[in-house]
C-alpha cells in the first residue's frame, strides 16, 4: 500500500503517507528481530474535520499518533513514510522545531488523565507553565487569566478556585477536562485525542465528547480521535479510518462507511457491535497476523471470509464514491453490490 490516500499536502491539515514503524531489537541469541507494527499507514485530515482512527488492540492506532508526534522510544523506530502538517514533514523536522509545535500548534489528549498530569504541581501552575514554554514573553498574570478562561470553557465550575487544585483532588471526568484544556490552551490547529473517554462512565463520556466536538468546531481545529468504540466514531466523527495490522484498510466519511463498508474487516467489526450482533452466528475467527513474520499480500487474508488466491498479492487502494477508499481486491465489486 504505497499510494497515498486522497488528500494532498496543500489542503490537508495532516497528511500521513505510507508510514512504517518497526520495533527493532536484538533477541537473547543476539539476532535482530523486527516487529513490523506499522506497515504503510496513510490517511489525511482536513481542517475543521474530526477523524476517528478506529481498530482493535494492537492495530497500531496509538503507535501512529506517537510516530507522527515524534514520541517513539527505542526499540520503536520509523523506517519510512511522511507526515505533513501545515505543509511540513513532521518526521523530518529537527527536535527543537518539533518541540515548538507540540503543545502549541498540535495538542495531545491522552487516555489516562490521572497519570498524565504532574502530581506535584497545581492545575493552574501546569497551565501557566505550558503557555510560557511556548510564549516566553507572556506574563504570569496573563497566562493565569488565560488558564481561568480555558478551564471555564471546558466546563469546570469555579475555575478561579480550581487553579489551586492538585491533580489527585479531581475526579476522572474533571481530570480529563483539565487535559483537554491543556491541549487547547495554546490554540492548536490539530488535536490528537487518544482514547479520550475510555475508563470514564458513559454519562461522563457524553459530556467529554460533546465538549471535544464543540471546541474543535468552534475553533476550526482538525481532530483525530483514536478509539476502539464504533459508537464514538458514528456520532462524534466526520470521517473514520479503520486500522488493521498497522495499515489503514478503509477510510471515508462516517455515513457511507457505516452504510456501505467496503473492506471485509470493517464489515466484520460493524457486525460485531452489540446493536448488530446476533448471538451464535457464524463469525470469522483468528488472531491478528504475527508482526514478526507478516505474509505477503493482504494482511487480513488469513481471517477473511472471502479471500481468494489473488489476495496473496498486495491489494489495490480502491476509490469509491464520496471520498471513500478501501484497500481490498474486492472493494469495488462488493461495495456496488
Amino acid at each position, binding site marked *: 500500500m504505497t499510494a497515498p490516500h486522497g488528500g494532498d499536502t496543500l489542503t490537508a491539515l495532516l497528511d500521513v503517507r505510507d508510514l512504517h514503524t518497526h520495533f527493532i531489537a536484538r533477541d537473547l541469541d543476539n539476532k535482530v528481530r523486527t516487529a513490523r507494527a506499522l506497515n504503510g499507514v496513510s490517511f489525511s485530515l482536513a481542517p475543521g474535520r474530526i477523524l476517528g482512527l478506529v481498530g*482493535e*488492540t494492537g492495530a497500531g492506532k496509538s503507535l501512529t499518533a506517537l510516530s507522527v508526534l515524534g514520541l517513539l522510544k527505542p526499540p520503536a523506530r520509523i523506517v519510512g513514510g511522511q507526515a505533513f502538517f501545515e505543509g511540513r514533514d513532521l518526521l523530518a523536522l529537527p527536535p527543537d522545531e518539533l518541540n515548538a509545535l507540540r503543545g502549541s500548534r498540535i495538542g495531545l489528549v491522552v487516555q489516562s488523565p490521572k497519570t498524565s498530569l504532574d502530581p506535584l504541581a497545581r492545575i493552574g501552575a501546569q497551565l501557566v507553565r505550558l503557555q510560557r514554554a511556548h510564549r516566553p514573553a507572556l506574563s504570569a498574570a496573563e497566562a493565569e487569566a488565560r488558564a481561568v478562561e480555558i478551564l471555564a470553557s471546558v466546563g469546570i465550575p469555579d475555575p478561579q478556585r480550581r487553579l489551586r487544585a492538585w491533580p489527585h483532588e479531581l*475526579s476522572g471526568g474533571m481530570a480529563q477536562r483539565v487535559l483537554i484544556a491543556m491541549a487547547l490552551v495554546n490554540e492548536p490547529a490539530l488535536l490528537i485525542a487518544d482514547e479520550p473517554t475510555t475508563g470514564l*462512565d*458513559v*454519562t*461522563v*463520556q*457524553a*459530556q467529554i465528547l*460533546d465538549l471535544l466536538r464543540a471546541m474543535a468546531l468552534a475553533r476550526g481545529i482538525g481532530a483525530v480521535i483514536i478509539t*476502539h*468504540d*464504533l*459508537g*464514538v*466514531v*458514528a*456520532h462524534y466523527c466526520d470521517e473514520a479510518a479503520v486500522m488493521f495490522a498497522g495499515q489503514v484498510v478503509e477510510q471515508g466519511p*462516517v*455515513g457511507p462507511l*457505516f*452504510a456501505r463498508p467496503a473492506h471485509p474487516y470493517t464489515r*466484520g*467489526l*460493524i457486525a*460485531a*457491535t*452489540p*446493536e*448488530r*450482533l446476533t*448471538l*451464535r*452466528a457464524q*463469525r*470469522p*475467527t483468528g*488472531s491478528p497476523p504475527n508482526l514478526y513474520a507478516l505474509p505477503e499480500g493482504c494482511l487480513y487474508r488469513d481471517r477473511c471470509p472471502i479471500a481468494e488466491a489473488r489476495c496473496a498479492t498486495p491489494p489495490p487502494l480502491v476509490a469509491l464514491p464520496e471520498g471513500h477508499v478501501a484497500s481490498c481486491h474486492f472493494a469495488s465489486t462488493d461495495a456496488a453490490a
Partner: protein
Amino acid sequence: MSAPILQVTGLAKRFPTPGGVVNAVNDVSFTLSGGETLGLVGESGSGKSTLGRCVLRLVAPSAGRIVFAGQDITTAPESRCRALRGSMQMVFQDPWAALNPRMTARDLIEEMLLLHTRLSRAERRDEAERLGLRVRLPSAMLDRYPGELSGGQQQRVCIARAIATKPALIVLDEPTSSLDLSVRAGILDLLAELKEETGAAMLFITHDLGTLRLMADRVMVMYLGRVVEQAPAAEIYERPAHPYTQALMSAHLPADPTAKLARHVLTGEIPSPINLPPGCAFASRCPVALPNCRERATNLEAVPGAQATHRAACLRLADGGNRIPG
C-alpha cells in the same frame, strides 16, 4: 424458570475508611431463578461489583440476608462458604489477574475439579479436556500458560473453570469489558450457549447496555449503592422509568450514525458515597428533580401503567413527571 436459587433481602455493605463510612451497597433485594440471567448495570462506584461479591460471600455483608439454594449463607463461616463455592462461581473482568501465571490452562481447569469434586486423576484429565473443548480451546492450547494466550483465550479458561463444577449460580463481573469487539462476540456466544445448556442462574454485571440487551432476561439498575429500577429486559429498554436509567440509555452510543440520539446530558456532581443525601441520591444531577426529592427517601414502587414486575424508585412516578422531556 424454576424455584429461586438466590434470594437477597435488604443487603447492605459499608466499608469503613479514614474519611468516613462508604455506603457501597444499600438495602438491595432481589431473587434469581435457575436458568435466568439478571443484568446488573450501573456506572463506576454504583456498588454493582460489591453486590456481586457479597452474594458469593467473597466479602461479608454488613446487613441483610442471602439465601442460596434454600440455605441462609449470610453469616455462614468461611469453611462452609468454601464448600459452597463449587456451586457458585464467578468470572472476573480481568482474566490475566484471575489466572495463576505459573499454571497451564489445563492445570488451571483441573484445579477446580481437584478442589470441588472427587474425580480421579484420569477422570480429571478427561474432564479438563472436555471443558477445554467446550469453551473452544483445542487440546494444544491447554498446555499453554496464561501469558501465551490472548485475552479472549484467557477469558475462555476462566469460563471453563467457572463451569467445571456445574454451579447453580455464576456471577459474571464485566466478563467482556476488557476484550475487543470481535473477541467479545465469541465470548457472548459461548455464555449464551452455556446459559441454555447448564441452566445456571447468572448475575451479569456490566456498564454496557448494548451487551446486556443480548444477555439479560431482567435488568436491575444501580446508582450509588441503591437499586433505582428493575424490570424485564425488553420493558426497561422500551420504557425506562427512572430519570437515571433514561440518562444512562441516552448516553449509550449505538454504532450507527443514522440512529437518533435522545440526549439527556447530565450536569451536577455525583454525591460522595460517604455522605449520601437523605433523599434520592440522583437528585443532584436529575433534570426533573423537585425540591423535596433531596429530602424524601424513595423506595422501589410499581411503575404506573407498566408490567407489575417493573419497579422504580422515583418520587415523580406519582405525578408522571419522571420522564425527561426532549
